[in-house]
């Protein structure tokens, strides 16, 4: 069993422990805590205003643009990491390649900027 698997076993166990730990804490908490639910208590807290309807749905969709841009740049990242590691081997060729790639994405960013899509409200 090489170190590789051992390492990831660590990762897995940490992950699992995280979940278990949270569960344990919450269980512990639920064991000791009082339980006196009332309708008023279970109502959504909106700073004292009466909550009207569910909160879901009907939000301005342009928030979505940020998520969208993020996804695009996140995808860029998966290329950036191997590139950064290999960058000395690839040389100028790699730089130009990545330069074009990033340039194209930045063009999109510029577009979004000019189109006023980067405004939050």
């Amino acid at each position, binding site marked *: 069993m090489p170190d590789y698997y051992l390492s990831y076993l660590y*990762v897995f166990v940490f992950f699992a422990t995280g979940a278990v730990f949270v569960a344990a804490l*919450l269980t512990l*908490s639920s064991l000791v*805590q009082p339980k006196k639910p009332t309708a008023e208590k279970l*109502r959504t*807290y909106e700073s004292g205003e009466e*909550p009207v309807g569910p909160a*879901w749905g009907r*939000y301005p969709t342009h928030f979505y643009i940020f998520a969208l841009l993020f996804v695009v740049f996140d995808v860029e990242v998966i290329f950036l990491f191997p590139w950064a*590691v290999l960058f000395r081997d690839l040389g100028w060729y790699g730089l130009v390649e990545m330069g074009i790639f990033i340039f194209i994405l930045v063009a999109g960013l510029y577009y979004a900027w000019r189109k006023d899509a980067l405004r939050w409200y």
Partner: protein
Amino acid sequence: MVEGPFGIDPVLWAVLRLAIAIVLVIALIMNGALLLIYLERKMQAVMQDRIGPYHVGPFGLLQTFADAIKLIAKEDVRASQTDATFFIAAPALVFSPMLAAFVVVPFAPPIVGADLSIGLLYLTTLGAMGVLGIVIAGWASNNKYALMGGLRSAGQLISYEIPQILSLVTAVLVLGTLSMVEITELQPGPITNIFVLPLAFVTFFMAALAETNRTPFDLPEAESELVAGYLTEYSGMRWGTMLALTEYGNVTIVCAIMTTLWFGGWNGPGVEAFPILGILWFTLKTYAFILVFMWIRATLPRLRIDQLMSFCWKGLIPLTLLNLGVTAALLLAFPDTLVPVAIANWLLLGAFALGLPALQRRRLRRIRARLGAGAMPAPRSAS
């Protein structure tokens, strides 16, 4: 397979080591959180000319401990309108990745959970997972404030993830590896990465502030606007794990990354002789950063959400991209020395530090001019 010490069976040693690591990390997180909350309160109090917690225990040291007990014993209210699946899953979703991040943190030469060859990438990945928990928490509450807070948090987190990663990649360009241990080993002397890539550090630092919801980017918790953001409906221990543990854990992780990447990690006087000494240096450096975080919280005002997003997309991302390109080109042009890169980085940092206020002033002037002309649209309510 690592040979166990004292002739212990390697398998048993592996299991043992794992168990020890987990226990240590959890203890670290919990104690760290308790300590850090206390520290933060105290520090803020001092800076604001107050006393801070002093009732419970000496100097109020046990205050946070008492708080923790209170949290555990508190009634757990889940509003009837919430989405059960998400509501329950959210705490685990934010806590687990944070915990798992500690696997690759290089405390000292012998004390590393696992030296993944893609260590930095792994950390990035976990950072990305954290967003999920926050969005889900906000969504699950079915509370307009919480949802808005979740949306904002998500928007902020995902936005700042980009400059954060870009800064990391800039550092990787110089270092050429993703392994946290190797990165540390590459900076043995007093000349650490910070001297070569100061701008990348600064951008990373800013992004990290936002990623951990720290002031001036702590909008999700802007009480005056959104109650407690995505945490509004969370109470009791759910709140405890979500905020107290996870947030401080995340702060620790980010600071650890900064320490490793820019400040030589465990390297310090005497580490060659006594590797275990590395843990001291590492912890010291990391906590120094944490204190800086707190200092900033006490000093800076909170940004408005649109300013925050603009700053990321229109300022930080272009800047980090520029830095990345310049660094890459200079590294290729001068393969044998880092001096040009360092010079360029410092120059860029200087330009940034001077240019940003200048730009702000110009913008302000323009807005005033428009106001004077009466063409300013009615202020829109931030959503």
